[in-house]
């Protein structure tokens, strides 16, 4: 028998396979394979191959766009959106359109070609997270932007086009639809109950303990009740926080710890799968949305999305979160 579960925030239903859940073995992942180390534009010494850097953490006395950096931010060579110009929204009959203003940056997490985020030292991961915050704060000053999305595609199965590990940041002139749905859902909940739905969710997860992968003093990582994908995980600050970029040094240290642990567990259990993560944070349009709570969603790309999912927005999940965490919790890392 399957079970239908509803995401309490956006109201999306998912179909969960309860009787014969798929195990990591059934999901057959071929481990990630690094190629193309020779001419990688993201490696040490090849800095000239990328557009000039926007910001970097580097060794003292090293010049921009030379070796000696730890984290380096560059504009995307093929940006989905362009930074120059004014926003020009217009109509075309019944259609609405706008020019593609925005920022699209690449965050090089490490100079080492064959290291993914969880392979880095805690201090190095902290630097990556700190850089995310710095770039967000900088772009927040640009009044044209309403939203900043930080995300990562790891492996070609997750849409990565370059092998060397990196994450990306896109600043958008409008709030994206998925975020609006979350804002509306959590906003309605807050209006009625005067409580944050994410805080309530954390409380229920801590009570039930059925879906928690791991936690520390400041963060919790769990497989969401209405997961869209097998082994989907959410990482959240336990304390109510609207903006990711307001994270303190101690928040960043705790987040680095939990992120390293969670990604390493996923790597072990699922044989180094392709994955995406995204940070959902409050919009930067000046409005304060008390019912929102920033979080990171991690999605291993194990199953293909087919016609049913596209047509309905209804996901069928072969591994319930309660089963997934058994593997994740016991994973030796």
């Amino acid at each position, binding site marked *: *028998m*399957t*079970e*239908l579960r*509803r995401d309490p925030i*956006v109201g*999306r*239903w998912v*179909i*969960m396979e*309860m009787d014969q859940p798929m195990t990591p073995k059934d999901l057959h992942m071929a481990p990630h394979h690094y190629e193309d180390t020779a001419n990688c534009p993201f490696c040490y010494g090849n800095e000239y191959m990328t557009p000039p850097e926007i910001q970097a953490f580097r060794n003292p006395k090293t010049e921009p766009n030379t070796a000696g950096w730890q984290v380096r931010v560059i504009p995307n060579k093929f*940006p*989905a*959106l*362009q930074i120059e110009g004014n926003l020009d929204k217009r109509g075309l*009959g*019944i259609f*609405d*359109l*706008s*020019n*593609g203003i925005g920022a699209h940056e690449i965050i090089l997490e490490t100079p080492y070609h064959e290291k993914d985020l969880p392979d880095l030292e805690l201090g190095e991961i902290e630097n990556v997270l700190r850089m995310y915050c710095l770039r967000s704060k900088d772009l927040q000053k640009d009044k044209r932007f309403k939203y900043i*999305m930080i*995300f990562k*595609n790891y492996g070609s*199965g*997750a*849409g*990565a086009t370059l092998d060397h590990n990196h994450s*990306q940041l*896109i600043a*958008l002139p*409008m709030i*994206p*639809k*998925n*975020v609006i*749905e979350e804002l509306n859902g959590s906003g309605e909940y807050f209006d009625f109950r005067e409580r944050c739905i994410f805080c*309530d*969710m954390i409380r*229920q997860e801590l*009570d*039930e303990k059925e879906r928690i992968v791991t936690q520390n003093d400041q963060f919790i990582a769990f497989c969401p*009740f*209405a997961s869209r994908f097998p082994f989907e995980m959410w990482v959240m600050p336990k304390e109510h926080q609207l903006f990711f970029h307001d994270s303190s040094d101690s928040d960043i240290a705790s987040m680095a710890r939990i992120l390293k642990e969670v990604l390493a567990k996923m790597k072990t259990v699922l044989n180094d799968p392709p994955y*995406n993560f*995204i940070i*959902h944070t409050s919009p930067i349009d000046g409005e304060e949305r008390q019912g929102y709570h920033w979080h990171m*969603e991690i*999605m291993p790309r194990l199953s*293909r*999305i*087919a*016609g*049913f999912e*596209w*047509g*309905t*927005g*209804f996901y069928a999940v072969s591994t319930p979160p309660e089963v997934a965490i058994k593997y994740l919790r016991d994973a030796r890392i």
Partner: protein
Amino acid sequence: MPELRKDPVIGRWVIIAVERSRRPKGFKAPSHQTTEEDCPFCEGKESQTPREIFAIRKEGSAPDKPGWDTRVVPSKRPFLRVEGNINRHGRGLYDVMSGIGAHEVIIETPKHIGNIADLDETQIAKTVTCWIDRFVDLSRDERFKYVLVFKNYGTAAGAGRVYHSRSQLIATPVTPKRVKEELFGSKKYYDYHERCVFCDLIHQEMESKDRIVLDFDGFIAVTAFASRFPFEVWILPKEHNCDFSRMSVEKRLYLGKVLKKVLTKLKIGLEDPAYNIVLHTAPFRRKKAKAGYWKTIEDDYHWHIEIIPRLGSPAGFEWGTGFYICPITPEDAAQYLREVEA
């Protein structure tokens, strides 16, 4: 300069990379699974499937025996099961119900052919008749609110190992989110304009002609203005109708023709890509339903088919935002498809 476009029905923004528009050859089409010797869907293998629910058969042939043109069987690995009660309940903050529904497979040909584009239009019309017959039958089951008819062709589109042309349908006990968004979007438009947004869209497309792929026999095929995917094509009946199951026998044949033509153009133009098809129609409307919930649906909604070639896989940005980046403009895609001889 890339362009941002908003879907007029549900309000989803997409990024269209106008200048970087890749030529269609730049896409690598995923390859298909190989032909299987022991295909369970071929004529003569009826015993390998669950018992048939419906079939269009030659006179005198018996169920679950050869002699059929199209055949509907329950899915062997159903997402949802037909037996039982819905049993809605809460678990703290979370809502749950049992996985009740129907999941059926429509086998579109007795021959071992993989792509529906290679069937003739009368055969495709018979598939449409199966969709309609099953839709009408399932509408009598009060537990169901919606039926999605869809198709996965090629492994990259989520099709299984068997290479035999088929579509699927799933009846769900709730109206799916993506469908609801469309329904609400159309209703909102109708409440203000007192016109159907899809009819307006058809008029505008016929005037500008930029995105038209085909236009004949009462159907129009266009590349969507705010395409999420390269070469995303929508097929709409030009005459307003919210419910596809009312299609006359004659129109089913026309739809068969249009589907064949569009899918053949995709097959030739994009080198046999994997694709998904979904059919969006009005949900079941029953007296019991919340008063006024879908009061104007007859006038505000318009059934249609969406075809999505699977040329790239959406990455983190698309999942996280619901904001799609489409690497080719629908105008270029339409022009390319118009020029493909099919």
